[in-house]
């Protein structure tokens, strides 16, 4: 093809053709903005109770209705996005940080260390994710911070595996061999040559994992192990509303949709990234 195409241009060209991913990207940006500017965007104080407004269906002043205590659901969803995004992002970030490090070390040094790390991740794999989270929360007690810890622990092994896989491949690559032959140190090879090469896989998984983490955190809240009231966490809102299905459906529907769309768009965004970063697609 013509010269002067930067990797980013190729990426962008492929990415923008996935219109679902573009829509997702826009949504995520809006969501982040809403979270950051929640006090400006939210029509009401998310903590303001007014028992006389208990469980009002959607109306002009409360577009998503009110909850049990007469709090504005839309405002709570907007404030809740702060928590869901923060939990999703932080837990995946921590998981990725540890996972990438372990995967890199494991793939690069091999041998005993590799065996140790991989067996450990096998073990973590062997405990079904949410059970692991429940166990961890059972040990640490409920609460958002512990949810983050739990969710990061079980997103970690996948990161480790992804990175280990591409590290193993890159370790054998000619350019790493070339770097070795000119005398590059192990550290240099690991961080300058191998690590950047593993990142595209990490980024893709990272985006998708945020969705999964948001759901897991919500599920933990649903099981009563997550965020504590009156925190406007989406999963907790759902858990709170489930006793009213059939009576006040808006209490279930709106937080449910918030989770669904957020996770959906993170997934679509991740799909788009994958397609765009995959050299096989055009």
């Amino acid at each position: 093809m013509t010269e002067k195409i930067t990797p980013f241009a190729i990426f962008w060209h492929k990415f923008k053709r996935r219109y679902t991913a573009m829509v997702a990207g826009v949504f995520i940006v809006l969501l982040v903005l809403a979270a950051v500017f929640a006090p400006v965007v939210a029509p009401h104080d998310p903590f303001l109770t007014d028992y006389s407004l208990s469980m009002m269906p959607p109306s002009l002043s409360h577009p998503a209705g009110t909850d049990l205590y007469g709090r504005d659901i839309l405002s709570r969803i907007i404030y809740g996005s702060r928590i869901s995004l923060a939990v999703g992002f932080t837990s995946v970030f921590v998981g990725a940080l540890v996972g990438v490090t372990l995967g890199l070390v494991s793939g690069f040094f091999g041998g005993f260390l590799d065996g140790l790390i991989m067996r450990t991740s096998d073990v973590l794999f062997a405990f079904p994710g949410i059970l692991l989270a429940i166990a961890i929360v059972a040990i640490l007690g409920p609460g958002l911070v512990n949810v983050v810890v739990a969710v990061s622990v079980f997103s970690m092994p996948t990161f480790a595996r992804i990175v280990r896989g591409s590290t193993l491949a890159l370790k054998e690559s000619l350019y790493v061999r070339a770097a070795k032959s000119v005398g590059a140190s192990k550290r240099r090879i690991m961080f300058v040559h191998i690590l950047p090469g593993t990142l595209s896989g990490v980024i893709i998984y990272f985006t998708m994992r945020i969705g999964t983490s948001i759901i897991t955190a919500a599920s933990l809240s649903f099981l009563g192990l997550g965020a504590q009231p009156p925190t406007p966490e989406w999963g907790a809102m759902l858990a709170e509303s489930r006793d009213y299905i059939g009576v006040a459906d808006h209490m279930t529907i709106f937080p449910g949709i918030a989770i669904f769309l957020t996770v959906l768009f993170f997934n679509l965004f991740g799909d788009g990234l994958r397609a765009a970063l995959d050299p096989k697609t055009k």
Partner: protein
Amino acid sequence: MSGGYSPFPSAGPRRVSSKKAEFMLKYFFKRCMAILPVLFVVSVLAFAFVHLLPGDPARMMAGDDADEATIEMLRTELGLDRPLPVQYLTYMGKLVRGDLGISLRTNLTVFDELKLRYLPTMYLAFAGMAWSVVIGIFFGAVAAIYSGKWQDYTAMMVSVSGISVPQFWLGLLAIQLFSVHLGWLPVAGYTGKFSELILPSFTLGATVAAIMARFTLSAFLDVLGEEYISTARAKGVTETLVMWKHAFRNALIPVITMVGLQFGFLLGGSVVVETVFAWPGLGRYMIEAVAVRDYPVLQALLLLYSFHFVFINLVVDMVYALINPEIRYE
């Protein structure tokens, strides 16, 4: 027997298959050896679990209104006063004899309790797996075959939605729709009827179906780029055969490993689904056990879950070796 389809059932000498059998046996042992350390670590973790939880296990086991003497007695009885490695060995020794302890809540042996709840969870998990494999592979294949067309987008949207719905929400909505409004299916619980299995297993399988669909899609696309697909077309093989004989089979190979890995996810999901659907299985049992701090039960459940995961993956590995002739056997 090898997995390849042959137009001549009797064709070819059997020598290969006996060699293969021998290889499979060896391979099996090798895999078994490899999972031993995993099981070991898992058992240590499950053992450590009780000791990691805040509070004195004996005090918790003794219950609300026990006095110090009872607790002290229990402590000796449980061997909690001995060094940890000794405790672990005792624990393992009992484990090997199938003694998982006694449920603090019901005073029944944990073994008996698990026995009761085991099958319902397995039904649920396997039915969920069936849903996800069928739906996932179908959508994935459609998306790959019609790559870039509306079918592709639709299939992928549907399956990505599957990942994005929280299972508990999906379950609640499904009950409202299918059981309350339409009245087609039982609401909840399990007493052995097939109809009771449909909604929970679908809810459970939906997420994994989405994952499978994605994975099938990418495996399929990889395969479609392979030269042997061109070869098949160059022979003049019909497009249908190219897709379903040449491409599909090859795409399925990586998908099979995925099935094993997703099984763990499925078991995890069963915790939520069983709660929503009042399913008398291990998942709900776990939640109940957490709520009342029934330690022997939790310990046993952790072991059982991970053992299953490891075992299923062993089976998957074997299947994989069976159907993939490229696994070397000489």
